[in-house]
């Protein structure tokens, strides 16, 4: 027959097989959806596997830094070097650590009594510590000869000093105690003293973005804001219970979070102190310390209930909880500046290193590995609200005392709610208004 044209599929196997055994396999792709049927259920199963694997690989504990002979009272991260950490203990000892090798590089007794707080200068060459002996001592970060081991500067304060924080770029630092004092490195007397009320302050923090702003927590349940250019304090907000620590959001200069004695953390907007932007629940005992991640999206909080919890700034409940059998009451937590690690100091003399994301693989990832992980993340996000996947992703094992405390807290909260509702039902309409949770905790705001 004329004009007959026939073509049938006839593949040359050489095009599809590798040439030698050392070669990689040839993989032909065809993205036609008909060749990939049942896309949705397969993706769902993959998401389920991904979320299960995430829980399987969630091993956040990296190691502990062992060396202090008393509980760790304070930690300070080096502003420029990731591997350097300074820690102070209840017996007045300060230790410097090399985190890469997890070894102590230097230790000395700095104060009589507690080391209340430590902070590095912005260039990282020196650090200052305050102790119960009313002294502010400045030390060199690196020791080259014997002389360097002595403090390069010792300041004597008239009153007890309980916290210290350094200005972002100027040679100014603030301490707190009976009142908030501003010091300049060269002077023996404070440059400025801020007073508001009679009670003592126990924590002070400079804002690292809006550099003239600083805030402190007072024992009279208040948080006080100062401007270091002004003569007096700016504002004060009083909560129901005392705040233990305060951290500024490093990305949003106007936000800060406080760790409160009433088991919660409160995120405030400086411009609107009347009510917190968010309340972060989940701890079952007083929250002692917190620190923001350098991204400003998350923060870590350590609590008296022997757990470390990680919160997202915009969410009310914790993303993750870390605990070990041996870890006791937390005294201080820090989030490393590469956003990968969390450091926690606790009562029982150890400093612990954790991964910031529990199931993250450390070290360099191969490209295929990375794409696989990215794909898994995308799937997890896509199917996040499926009940099965949500359940697995949320599940955390917590010690029994936490579980019981959570139960108790839940019943207490429900009881309060029930009582409120009952009162509302049995009184004149409008007599018992519904007060949002966020408005319940602020007692007053002063200017």
């Amino acid at each position: 027959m004329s004009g007959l044209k026939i073509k049938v599929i006839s593949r040359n196997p050489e095009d599809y097989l590798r040439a030698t055994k050392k070669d990689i396999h040839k993989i032909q792709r065809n993205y036609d959806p008909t060749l990939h049927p049942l896309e949705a259920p397969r993706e769902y199963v993959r998401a389920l596997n991904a979320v299960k694997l995430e829980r399987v690989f969630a091993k956040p504990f990296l190691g502990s830094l062992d060396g202090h002979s008393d509980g760790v009272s304070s930690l300070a991260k080096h502003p420029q070097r990731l591997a350097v950490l300074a820690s102070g203990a209840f017996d007045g000892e300060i230790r410097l650590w090399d985190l890469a090798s997890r070894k102590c590089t230097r230790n000395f007794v700095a104060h009589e009594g507690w080391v209340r707080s430590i902070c590095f200068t912005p260039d990282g060459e020196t650090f200052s510590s305050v102790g119960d002996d009313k002294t502010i001592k400045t030390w060199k970060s690196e020791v080259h000869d014997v002389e360097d081991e002595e403090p390069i500067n010792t300041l004597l304060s008239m009153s007890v000093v309980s916290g210290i924080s350094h200005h972002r770029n100027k040679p100014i630092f603030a301490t707190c105690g009976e009142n908030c004092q501003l010091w300049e490195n060269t002077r023996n007397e404070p440059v400025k003293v801020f007073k508001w009320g009679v009670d003592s302050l126990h924590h002070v923090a400079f804002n690292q973005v809006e550099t003239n702003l600083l805030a402190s927590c007072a024992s009279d349940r208040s948080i006080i804001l100062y401007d270091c250019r002004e003569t007096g304090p700016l504002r004060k907000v009083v909560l129901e219970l005392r705040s233990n620590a305060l951290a500024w959001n490093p990305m949003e200069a106007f936000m800060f979070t406080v760790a409160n004695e009433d088991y919660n953390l409160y995120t405030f907007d400086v411009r609107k102190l009347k009510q917190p932007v968010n309340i972060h629940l989940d701890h079952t005992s007083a929250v002692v310390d917190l620190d923001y991640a350098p991204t400003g999206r998350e923060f870590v909080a350590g609590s008296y209930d022997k757990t470390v919890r990680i919160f997202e700034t915009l969410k009310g409940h914790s993303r993750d909880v870390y605990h070990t059998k041996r870890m006791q009451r937390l005294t201080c937590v820090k989030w490393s500046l590469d956003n990968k690690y969390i450091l926690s100091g606790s009562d029982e003399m150890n400093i612990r290193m954790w991964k910031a994301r529990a199931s993250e693989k450390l070290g360099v990832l191969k490209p295929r590995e990375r794409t696989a992980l990215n794909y898994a993340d995308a799937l997890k996000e896509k199917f996040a609200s499926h009940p099965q996947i949500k359940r697995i992703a949320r599940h955390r094992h917590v010690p029994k005392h936490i579980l019981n405390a959570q139960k108790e807290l839940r019943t207490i909260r429900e009881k309060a709610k029930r009582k409120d509702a009952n009162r509302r039902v049995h009184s004149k309409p409008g007599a018992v208004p519904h007060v949002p949770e966020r408005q319940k905790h602020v007692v007053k705001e002063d200017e």
Partner: protein
Amino acid sequence: MKVKSEEIKKLRYFEKTKEKNSKLIKNTDEVEEYHVKLKPHSKWTKKKLEIKDSKPQKVIVKKKNSGKSPISLKNLEKHSRGDGISGKGVKHPLYAAKLQKKELKYRFAQNQAARADILLTENAGYLEVDEDHRTTCITQKEIVKNVDITAATKTFNLNLDFGPYRAKYSKNGRHLLLGSKKGHLAAFDWVTKKLHCEINVMESIHDVSWLHVETMIAAAQKEWLYIYDNTGMELHCMKKMDKILRMEFLPYHFLLAAVNEYGFMSWLDISIGEIAGHYNNHLGRTSVMTHNPYNATICLGNSQGVVSMWSPTVKKPLAKILCHKTPLSAIAVDQKGTYMATTGVDKSLKIWDIRNMDGPLQHYRLRSSAVDLDFSQKDMLAVGLGEVVEIYSDTCTKTADKPYLRHKMAKSICNFKFCPYEDVLGIGNSGGFTSILVPGSGEPNFDAYESNPYQNKAQRKEAEVKALLEKIPADLIALDPFEVVKVDVPTLQDKLEAKTELPHVRRKKIDVKAKRKNKGLTNIARKKIIKDKARKDQIMESIKTRATSNETKDGQKPSKSFGVLDRFVSKPKPNK
């Protein structure tokens, strides 16, 4: 003016993106050409150009080979996952923006997939003749003469003596499994013609099937279901599955679906050896069965002419269609799960749209009733008529008047299957097995991560592990496979129940049960109708009586009036 303001309101959060979309569409559909004559650089010309920029009609910028090449609409359509979300009704602008961003990502993925089509190496087969000729009359001999040697080896004939054979290809199209009525079971690599195993099971074999890899075979024998490996070793005897007539393997679920003589359907999870579903379908004995690759449901045709779709966890059919008024003889579902072809003993062939349960789209008359039907990957339909196989192309969307190819054999056909990723149709018949070439029937480009005809042992093992990890649970089999990614909207009852669990919220008493409407009327309306009717009847009656009374008056007029004494005149008897 009002309308305009409303439009603006609606567009509020999408204005930017809409512009982007329009740009995208422009990119894909046509390349805009701008013609400009650029003069040597001077401040003046630059200024002038800038001024011109403000008037978009006159702007002319020369673009030559710049930007990405346009994507054909057909390709885009192929990779489309639907229209996406318009963004209307999203309450918060933040979420609206997020959704919009996600939508852009989906569109990007679609574009990339469409662009990747250029990398496909093989072209589909074809068969072309002069305008005055038809492809129907082209015989296998002629085809073999005109193709290359390797393709020519794909037509062959196996003369085997053990009665009618059933044949099935493995998922990657590389291996062939034959099972005969008289117990001959053979597995081989049909491309290289290398035999894996050949045994006589000493029982009748009703159906055979490959499992997920080519090292495992399932054979439905006279009594029970047996599983063999590729050396012919018996691995399992499933006594739970007895007297099986037909089997289908669902590769993504690892389920072996079977129907037996008594109408019991069973799904065997071959990865753990457990039965995922086992129940009676109450259809009686039927051996017309196929599976829908789009949603992994099992389609059964019965003697009443009804096609029903089944999933392992639901003991009732998911859907039923009355296709023929006579018993069904064969069913086939195409790769995309859009069309279903059915034939009955009434010698008719019908095409149905099974996504919408609609049809018949096409209705053909055949010369005799069809033995078997099968769709190829490129949507060609093979119809077995006694000793002849006819292959139609484009039967579903258009009405085909002539078969694309016709192959006559001197043996009666038992079953046939198109070989995946090859232009081959394998026919199991009474005298053995015949393989013929059907140009253009197979998908030329395989995806090696789904099924790879050239995979070696290591790759097979890895693929097996991967597939096992992604095993879809049996309870996800439903008519719509995308149900799992759809938004779950709670019913009113669910919402109310959730509310009762909240402390101290008083639930409104709402009867969730749908009321049976009494012929569309309320009680009052019905009462009114009854009342009206009664009134009407009364009126009618009164009119009637009046008329009769008038009649009586008309008929029997008193001849005389006696004044007051009229009362003594005798009354006439009322008419009955």
